[in-house]
């Protein structure tokens, strides 16, 4: 055994290759005089050398083949599954977004011709064209989807044209602004604005 705890600590430090040059010298000097520590150190070094000299046998020749014979073959389509498994929240979010976008998109694509007056006023129709008659005054907004608007009378509010064209809409006929929405994203934005207005400013709406 090493003769003191301090020497034992020094021996461990040297064997861990963490001892400073000073510590190494200290141990060396001490071991020169102390038979116990010298023997202890030499036995440790010998054990380490014996361990390091152990042979590393090779695994049998057929090892790789036998491993490959037991691993399951991955089916096609599992790549997606394997991605979804560790990311449940992202997966849920992605599914939600896909459903949202596709529902909005189908609304955008398949809404038939539609003309709505928010407020008071009469409209006349001619095929896909909505007409504000000459002497009519629309007291509110006019919203036209997938058609044409022919404004001969007056609109006191805004005119919103979604995928629609105005055939005659000089600024004089419309008191509010004329908003043209021809892109999906614009429409989405317009719809969301409307949604939030309805949700948060519900008291301001007429009726």
């Amino acid at each position: 055994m090493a003769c003191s705890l301090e020497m034992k600590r020094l021996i461990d430090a040297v064997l861990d290759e963490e001892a400073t040059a000073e510590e190494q010298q200290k141990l060396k000097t001490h071991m020169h005089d102390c038979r116990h520590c010298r023997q202890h150190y030499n036995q440790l070094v010998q054990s380490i050398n014996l361990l390091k000299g152990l042979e590393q046998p090779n695994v049998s020749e057929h090892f790789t083949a036998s491993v490959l014979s037991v691993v399951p073959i991955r089916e096609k389509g599992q790549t997606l599954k394997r991605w979804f498994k560790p990311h449940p929240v992202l997966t849920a979010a992605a599914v939600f977004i896909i459903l949202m976008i596709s529902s909005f998109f189908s609304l955008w694509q398949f809404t038939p011709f539609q003309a709505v007056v928010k407020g008071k006023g009469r409209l006349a129709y001619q095929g896909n064209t909505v007409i504000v008659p000459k002497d009519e005054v629309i007291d509110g907004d006019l919203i036209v989807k997938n058609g044409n608007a022919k404004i001969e009378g007056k609109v006191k509010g805004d005119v919103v044209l979604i995928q629609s064209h105005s055939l005659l809409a000089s600024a004089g006929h419309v008191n509010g602004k004329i908003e043209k929405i021809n892109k999906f994203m614009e429409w989405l934005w317009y719809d969301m604005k409307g949604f939030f207005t309805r949700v948060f400013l519900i008291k301001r709406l007429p009726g």
Partner: protein
Amino acid sequence: MESKIKRLIKKIKKGDQAAFEEIVNLYKNQVYNICYRMVGLPHEAEDLAQETFLRAYTHIDQFKSDKTFSTWLYRIATNLSIDYLRKKRPSTYLDADIPGTEGFTMYMHVPSDERLPEDRLIENEKQKIIHYEINQLPPKYRSVIVLKYLQDLSLKEISNILNLPETTVKTRVHRAREALRKRLRHF
């Protein structure tokens, strides 16, 4: 080497068996040796090594590419070996007494190559004795000895493999070294 391993792992994640075969060939001897020194028996070690690669393949998605692959793989191997030692009945230890053959042990039944030159024979005996003494250590000391002195890994790598703080690994190395010194001092 590191980037080659990363490339192979990526391929395995996509289901490439050839890439997996390459990984097995690269690591099979290291993994086998860890298992062999941990459990002491060649046949069991080979089964454990096979199980290690099988688990690595089926759980490859749990391997994060910013980690070192060998560390991950060796962790599976040591954990499987420690589990095996836990489940194993003590009577299958190499040094267990076989009823009716007092003084004899299973250890003497391990076959050795025939007709070796004398120094080879001595070397062979020496190897067996060291192997035997490693197997007398408790598994927690055995694992650090195997990883440090047989696999030549750093304390940091060992602490990652065993999921233990570096200071704990260091203490175990010291204690294991001391235990082996006592056993091997008359060599």
